[in-house]
């Protein structure tokens, strides 16, 4: 099952298109759209099916989006299944190959726009772990501003502060650290001086999706980095990735 999310920001606006069809079968579904968010350490569930724009899509405008909220498709059985203490794998409609995705678009008023096909898989929600992302892979030193959006969804309804770091892989030093929150869309601004091949974004306690935004003259770029295990297709991927993560963890420890 996939969850979906948006971005609320001072400069960046966002919109989400959530399809009511699977990508290999164009058969329309009657599923409803729900949002949930953590409040007083409980998940709150709300039906937002009034955001349906046609038989194919739900469409969330910027004013419908909050950084704490996550969105998912379900039927009325959700009211029986929903547990306010823990997110679950509620249905299999979005379990498709290729992956079921929403279109997540950012834009600025009277300016440019950029999007990517986005999802947050349930398998990531249950896990803790470490993000590892090469900053210079997507940040752009020619841009006026560079941000990293870090989306975390964790199964428990907690908004816990945890740390993200920009570390120097050559000098083995922390260059900058940030406080970010679980179950939130977090945004950190990157100093241009840190857009270098040896700088990596990492977290210690929680996973998340790092998505890079660059802005110049009202033009935007918006894309996520690959997780490190996608660079190795053979069985040694888990050993190699854990070796690298151990090396990075030693810097932040």
């Amino acid at each position, binding site marked *: 099952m996939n969850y979906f999310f948006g971005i609320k920001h001072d400069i960046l606006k966002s919109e989400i298109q959530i399809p009511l069809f699977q990508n*290999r079968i164009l058969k329309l579904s009657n599923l409803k759209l729900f949002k949930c968010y953590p409040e007083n350490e409980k998940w709150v569930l709300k039906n937002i099916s009034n955001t349906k724009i046609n038989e194919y*899509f739900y469409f969330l405008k910027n004013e419908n989006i909050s950084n704490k909220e996550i969105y998912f498709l379900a039927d009325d059985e959700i009211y029986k299944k929903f547990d306010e203490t823990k997110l679950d794998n509620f249905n299999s409609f979005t379990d498709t190959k290729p992956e079921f995705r929403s279109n997540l678009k950012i834009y600025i008023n009277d300016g440019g726009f950029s999007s990517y096909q986005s999802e947050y898989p349930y398998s990531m929600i249950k896990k803790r772990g470490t993000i590892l992302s090469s900053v210079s892979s997507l940040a752009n030193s020619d841009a006026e501003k560079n941000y990293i959006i870090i989306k975390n969804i964790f199964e428990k309804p907690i908004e816990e502060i945890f740390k993200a770091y920009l570390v120097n892989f050559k000098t083995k030093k922390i260059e900058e650290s940030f406080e970010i929150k679980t179950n939130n869309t977090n945004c950190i601004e990157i100093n241009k001086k840190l857009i270098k091949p040896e700088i990596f974004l990492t977290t210690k306690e929680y996973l998340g999706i790092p998505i890079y935004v660059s802005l110049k003259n009202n033009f935007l770029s918006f894309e996520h980095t*690959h997780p490190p295990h996608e660079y190795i297709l*053979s069985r040694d991927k888990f050993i190699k990735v854990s070796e690298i993560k151990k090396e990075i963890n030693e810097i932040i420890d």
Partner: protein
Amino acid sequence: MKSLIKNLLKSEISILIRNSLNIKPISIKTNQENYPTTVSDAFLWRTDKGYKTKFKYSDILNFFYKIKNSWVELHFYNKNNQLLKIEKIESLNLSNELEITSEYLNDIKDYGVFYIYHFSENDKDLNNGSIISNRCYLGFSYNNNLHSFIHGNILVKFTSVNSKQKISTDIVKTSLFNNQIYTIQKYFNDFDNNELFFVNPTSKIIEFSLENKKFRLNPHCTMVVETQNSIISIKSNCLFIRPTIFSYKGKYMDVHHS
């Protein structure tokens, strides 16, 4: 007996039958070769219509395997799969970039694909079964504006890290019939125009149709299809034919994978 059946089910002919009958179809299969393997995506380049392309790639042999003094080769092809140039790059940083302009490609203002292979003479730190794939990032600058980036998306060609093997392909699988449908999960109603860039990831001819028009794409060739439909459904004999999308509104452009 069990392993014989397992091997038969994974054989090329079995995959073709499964895909043709839509019985647990297989889109992508990377074989474990008896040598360390470097796999490349097909990366789109554009120098047409005021575009230039930036390519960002990392030294993954150094990063993951601590292999120093490796090099990369970039093999550039035009849209008709004719080799344009091979660029060998040594002295790699952990992260590197290359600007692809029409000047870089001998004044060609067009589009095509390129591949990246990581090579090293020192492959003893790799297992024979090791398979690396640099997924990389492509930035497209339209009329000299900010590059808009996308990541690599489709495994296409491979060879050995020690550069002693020929370049092979057909990681992406096909079907005997045009029975594979892929509907892009985006509503294309709000744009002036959309360009869909298709790359044939196989050594076979790919047929596909969209908006009731039929197209034929020769092995490893690239094609652009313009569309203004709100919903885009692609029917083909290829199990992974997902175009790169350029959507335009006013002077602004958005590029992303489908």
